[in-house]
């Protein structure tokens, strides 16, 4: 079964946006939510195994030396590729969005009034994607076990036939 982790990290140095997003996602989902102002703090807490990280593209408006969102994204993917990262940015630029996707982001949300609804949709899409991934893995495992089972059954029947315990092989063999 795919890992359906119920923890979200929000990493944004804009406390107003972070608080609003936290309140919105708390209301609309059943995830536990942790907020970080800096990417470094988020990376330090990745052992808590968040399923989703909402990550601001610019993370240095408060601390000029803080690492930026792209660096944090790369670090997260290096440490735990199963974490889905949704980038947040005030820039509605396709090249920025493409760049974040190339680095492995699941989605890119432009900050604005619709950002909260889009964030909620992203959580839903990630959950659905993970669930489908889990189902696909289950079917794959089931197929493998069925193949092994049939193989073993065929070998048993052949053995029984060769040892004279049964006369004829079934038609499917």
């Amino acid at each position, binding site marked *: 079964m795919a890992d359906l982790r119920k923890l979200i990290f929000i990493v944004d140095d804009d406390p*107003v*946006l972070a*608080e609003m997003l936290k*309140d919105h996602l708390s209301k609309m989902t059943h995830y536990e939510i942790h907020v970080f102002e800096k990417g470094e703090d988020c990376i330090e807490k990745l052992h808590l195994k968040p399923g989703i990280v909402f990550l601001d593209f*610019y993370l240095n408006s408060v601390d*000029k030396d803080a690492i930026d969102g792209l660096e944090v994204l790369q670090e997260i993917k290096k440490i735990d590729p199963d974490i889905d990262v949704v980038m947040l940015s*005030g820039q509605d630029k396709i090249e920025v969005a493409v760049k974040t996707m190339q680095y492995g982001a699941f989605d890119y949300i432009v900050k*604005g009034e619709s950002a*909260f609804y889009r964030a909620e949709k992203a959580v839903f899409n990630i959950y659905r994607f993970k669930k489908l991934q889990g189902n696909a893995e289950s079917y794959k495992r089931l197929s493998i076990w069925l193949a092994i089972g049939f193989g073993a059954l065929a070998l048993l029947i052949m053995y029984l036939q060769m040892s004279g315990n049964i006369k004829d092989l079934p038609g499917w063999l």
Partner: protein
Amino acid sequence: MSTASDLTFMRTFSGGDPEKIKKYVGMFLKMAPPSLNQMDEFSQKMDWKSLKTTSHSLKSQMKYMGMALGAEIAQKLENICAEESGTDEIPDLLSKLRSQVALAVTELENELSKL
């Protein structure tokens, strides 16, 4: 008469919950004036990168407070700083932004007192 701020989005977003509106607007009121001071400092030091980052951050917050003109000015500042071209416009833009924020602060405080 036009206003510098508009809490329509904030009211919808919070489902009309006055405590939430107070919380978000209160955070903005606490953060915006120091951000403007920082922006003035960055401008004097010609630190365009820092000015761009602070304008960018303030712009997002102003959008949620319905400060359309304020957000537009912040966007202009962000663009100028990114391109490092037309920087002579910065003092005037900062002054306009300061006026917008001052107006919005009065309006928002007034709105909060009614909640």
